[in-house]
């Protein structure tokens, strides 16, 4: 058990939620998704994002269409599906309640250690 593993696990947990959130705002290329995450200090490798996006697509939470690009080959342009929107809302509720729970526990333990 090392800390990098645990950190990766934590990140992995919220990653799906963050991606769905980004796509709730509109269609995006994978590179744009990475940009958004980077701005929020959530660095993720492209090599991690692509498998994840494919997995979400095969779970019917996302879909993509090919967009022709003058700069080279066509690229996948991802958007969220109706299933994905439902999923997002459920994750959102979970996130909110998790936040509250963790907030309570950390406050409680802070009080205790004070």
């Amino acid at each position: 058990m090392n800390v990098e593993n645990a950190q990766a696990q934590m990140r992995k947990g919220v990653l799906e939620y963050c991606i769905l959130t980004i796509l709730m705002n509109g269609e995006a290329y994978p590179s744009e998704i990475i940009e958004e995450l980077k701005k929020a200090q959530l660095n993720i490798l492209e090599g991690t994002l692509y498998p994840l996006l494919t997995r979400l697509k095969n779970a019917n939470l996302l879909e993509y269409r090919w967009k022709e690009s003058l700069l080279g080959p066509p690229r996948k342009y991802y958007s969220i599906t109706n299933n994905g929107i439902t999923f997002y809302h459920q994750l959102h509720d979970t996130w909110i309640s998790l936040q509250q729970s963790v907030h309570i526990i950390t406050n409680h333990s802070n009080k205790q250690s004070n």
Partner: protein
Amino acid sequence: MNNIINLNISGQSIPMDHSAYKIISEYINWIRIYFSQKVDEIEIIQDFESRIAELLYNKIKEGTDYVTSFHAQNVIDTIGSPEQIAADHGDTFQAYTSHDYSNYNNRNNHYKKLYKDESNKVISGVCSGIGNFYKIDPLIIRILFILMTLAWGTSILIYLILWIVLPSEKNNVIQSEKLIRSTHNKVLGGVASGIARYFNAEPVLIRLLFILPLLGTIFLNIINIFSDADRFFEAGIPISFLLYIFLWICIPKDTKVEKKNDINSNLQSNNNNNLNVRNATIHHSYSIPKDNYPAIERSNIFTTLLKIIAGFFLFIINFILLGLLCAAFAFILGIENIEQNKFPLIELILPQSDDKWLFWLSIITIIAIPLYYAIIGLIRLFSTKNLSLNNITHYILSILFVLGIFNIINMGKSIKDTISHTNSVNEEFILPFTKGKDIILTRDNLFNNDNNQLLYLINDSTYALKNITYEVKQGKDTTLKIIINKKSSGRNFEEAKIYANALQNSYSYDSTEQSITLPTFNIIKKGIPFRFQQTQITIETPSDARVLVKDIPLRYHNSNFHLFNYNVSLASGMKNSEVDSLGYLILNNSKR
């Protein structure tokens, strides 16, 4: 000297030097093996390779001629190194050896099943499954199945068995190059170019294959060597023609797959002489869909020559069809004005006269529809205008054409039925004869028939046919007889007899002159259709009588049963003693 390798990644050809090639190919191979253990392996690997290609392509566009190890490492750092990717997934990084690579390749081959691909099916996915298994475009498998149906329906049985036996899967990925018709490198329909593109061959060679039977036939005819080979080539001409048209119909166009950029041409044109360029692909056990760039278009003398040959044939076809069309219209519209030597009115041949319009409609359809396509083909061949039609129009025209052909064949059968039986009627008359006097035979000159016309329209639906045959027989006894035999065809014997009876022709006999005037024409009255009616008139003469014949083509049986044929022109070959000063042919002269 630098070794430049054009590596094919995700359908793009990226030039790079040797060290970059090593780095990139190792990276891609690692990605493949690592993700081969996951679900959705193919799509993920596709995404990776596509992104690698995109980033490398951008490096080229930024101004470098080829990718170096610096660029390659940069790209890997952007996407993520193998160690980082493994870590992100919670795995420990594992470098792979060549042993692992070969295991990977073998495993992929060994465990690969044959299945039906339900995500890409036309009927049941059988052809898609087979295509995925062999890495061939399912379209090719479908075409082969259809062609094999010609071999006594073999493929139908095989297909049904496969449908039942193969397991189903939904793969969502076509693992082969797509077979399409080329839109911008085409001579006729882009069939040959499309096939060449699929097999990475020269379009010229494929075109050669299609016209090989024709060339072979011409060649063998020129050098005048005939063996069994010439039958092979001759048979091949319609086969290759029909095959081309069949493929033209089956293979679709797809401009998205066929892109217009070609970065290879840029590199080749900027190529320095100390760059040694070769092409490479990373060997793998299956092909990921390639969106190939089309081959660089070379305007060939050969291509132009092919265009001229094709145009020539199309032009001739157009000419013939146009002529037929005009003739058909002339028949329909100009029927009242028949003065020339034409066969009887169509309605008299057809079983029922109402069929007349259907008949002409079918004829016009059969001529006009190919004419239409031939004209469009000609226009397309020599101009850049893109005349395209709806698929629906094609379907409708093809169906009409086939209907027309069926109709004509059906009518042909019915017509055959109407003349399936023959019957005849005989009439005999004994004419008074004076011994010692000559018998004179002439014909009535109805219609002043100087130009040898065979058919006359007397009025609406009464017509005259000049098809009477004449015979003179030297009889054994002393009577002069005229025998009229009227013959006709019909649907059955009774009908044939009725039609035979309905023939009208009349002769006249002048007993003083002993001259028989024979009819020239058969008269067929209103309501009786044309059913190959004929009349044979036989004159039996006493054995010692002399017969003088004016202007009648006849057969003459003398008493020894020798047969002489006398043509009406009485031209060469006749001895002068057989024709007298008035132009009468003298028969049986020696007996005098």
